[in-house]
């Protein structure tokens, strides 16, 4: 484990922030105020946070259609994101992108992505850039991390990206979040190798790791090793498969008839990364319940503030449509 109080607190706060962000969105979407397609990350928080807590701003991440968790974990502004999802002119992307296209280049967040599998090659490019930059004073490289789902691992671009990273020895980590579903299809059907994505990556010539994605400490420990490996010049890429769970539908509005009876209740009861984290740190006496409760309350406040600000934020106007296509034209 080797995490100090501050680190543990931060991790919990980050996971909780994602959770409440999503739970609140789930409510708000029902009112019809929020437009577009929204894919909630709830249930997978330990992956985003367990990965990103190791990263600095130099490191880059590339995300997916289910990107809120990765964005928040990499440090994107909560209110800026909420405003974006609300479609405000003050959103992180001026209301141009919405849920599926949140990015913050300054934070090293190179974008959520609506095209399944498109992020992987982009991540390789970011890794190649970091390779050109070379190691820091500490002899370690910056890394690029691409998040992909079990569905994305069937898209040709993902495979090409893995091979290119191996060939070029790019400092890239392919993080596969296996939540067992791509839309309404089970991975036991769509992934020829069923519950095994890591072996595919291995066959591309990469070192691979696997861990329980609902166990924050498993993710965090695993990523320490992976990062240590990939940051070492000359080693090249690696892949990690995390076994995780999606608590909501594929997108908001999904009737989820493909789920087994009681499936979600069972997942919430037994595979909730946040409850597991909480149980483990309180039982080990590392953090008192009261501290965590305080974070819970703070988080709800942060979200409430973000929602209020989003509601009140200025809307874009027709004139804005034409802006920001080019820098010069």
């Amino acid at each position, binding site marked *: 484990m080797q995490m100090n109080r501050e680190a543990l607190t931060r991790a919990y706060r980050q996971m909780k922030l994602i959770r409440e962000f999503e739970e609140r969105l789930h409510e708000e979407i029902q009112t019809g105020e929020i437009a577009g397609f929204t894919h909630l990350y709830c249930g997978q928080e330990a992956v985003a946070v367990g990965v990103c807590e190791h990263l600095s701003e130099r490191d880059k991440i590339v995300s997916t259609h289910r990107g809120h968790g990765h964005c928040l974990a990499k440090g994107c502004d909560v209110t800026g994101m909420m405003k974006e999802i609300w479609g405000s002119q003050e959103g992180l992307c001026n209301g*141009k992108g919405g849920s599926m296209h949140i990015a913050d280049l300054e934070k090293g967040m190179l974008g959520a992505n609506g*095209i399944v599998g498109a992020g992987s090659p982009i991540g390789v490019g970011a890794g190649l850039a970091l390779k050109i930059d070379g190691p820091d004073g500490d002899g370690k490289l910056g890394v690029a991390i691409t998040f992909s789902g079990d569905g994305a691992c*069937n898209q040709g671009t993902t495979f090409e990206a893995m091979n290119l990273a191996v060939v070029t020895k790019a400092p890239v980590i392919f993080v596969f979040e296996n939540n067992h579903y791509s*839309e309404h299809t089970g991975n036991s059907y*769509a992934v020829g190798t069923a519950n095994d994505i890591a072996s595919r990556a291995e066959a591309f010539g990469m070192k691979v790791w696997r861990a329980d994605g609902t166990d924050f400490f498993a993710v965090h420990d695993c990523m320490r090793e992976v990062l240590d490996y990939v940051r070492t010049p000359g080693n090249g890429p690696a892949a990690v498969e995390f076994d995780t769970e999606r608590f909501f539908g594929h997108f908001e509005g999904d009737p989820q008839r*493909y789920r*087994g009876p009681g499936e979600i209740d069972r997942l919430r009861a037994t595979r909730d990364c946040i409850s597991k984290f909480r149980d483990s740190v309180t039982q080990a006496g590392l953090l008192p319940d009261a501290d965590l409760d305080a974070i819970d309350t703070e988080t709800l406040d942060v979200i409430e503030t973000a929602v209020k600000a989003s509601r009140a934020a200025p809307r874009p106007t027709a004139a*804005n449509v034409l802006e920001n296509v080019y820098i010069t034209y």
Partner: protein
Amino acid sequence: MAKLMYRDAIRNTIFQEMQRDARVCVLGEDVVGGMGTAGGPEAIGGIWSTSTGLYDAFGADRVIDTPISESAIVGAAAGLALAGKRPVAEIMFADFIGVCMDQLWNQIAKFRYMFGGKSICPAVIRMPCGAGYNAAAQHSQVIHQFVTNMPGLKVVMPSTPEDACGLLRQAIRDDDPVIFLEHKFLYGMSGEVSDDPDFCIPFGHARLARAGLDATIVAAGMMVGYAEAAADELAKDGIGCDVIDLRTTSPLDEETILDSVEVTGRLIVVDEAPPRCSLATDIAALVASKAFASLKAPIEMVTAPHTPVPFARELESAYLPSPAKVAAAVRQTLSYR
């Protein structure tokens, strides 16, 4: 005749053609919906409800749920068609043509030509397209401008449930490859649909949706409704418009367009695509080269701007053509003397 929604007209036509012809088969992502889950096949039945019930009726060999692999989907459709089947493939959003264009453009479209006329490739590729749902830049696009440029493909853009039925049946029975573009915003549209099991609408024949003598409005797919609404609005002011619903952009019914412009002398083209190298410019160029003598005013094009599709509601509606914009363009052309 039966009253049907556009999406049901599509689903029913596929169903009937599968019943009629054992060579017809379906493939795409989540077209069964629920494979490999506790809910089981048909738990969802296609995210657009255009394939509900097909799996139960025709089984896994002919209703093929695929992984997220668009190149493999279109490529498999190509192979199925070359090997004697009549695949109807679905690409969930037309925007995903970016990852599978080779199979459409360099394979399916070109086989017959490259092979000296010795093959047929009767594949239908269905692609839900278009904006209106605030789905932002990567889930809102139209792509008829690309596929219309591609020799070897036929391109269909039905604007009503009736046309969806008749044109899809024609597409499935057609021996050439067909790109079938369903506007997502039309899925919920209701209308009378022929229940003749052989009802087909031939390709290359436009439909005159409104008749008038003052201006010619050309549109396809979703844009037809806007053109009609504009025409109806203008009619109140005594302005009469021909509204030409192209139905297919390739083949193109040049005659109907040219005949109309010869009478009206004024052309307005409505297109949801960005303006450059688009269907709007295509129709404009046709008229400027073949009906020049009849033209009385500059050609007006009502299109999306040269920008990606924006997310926020205000932005997206400003982005899209609308009946008001069409009507304004008609008035503009009429103001020219």
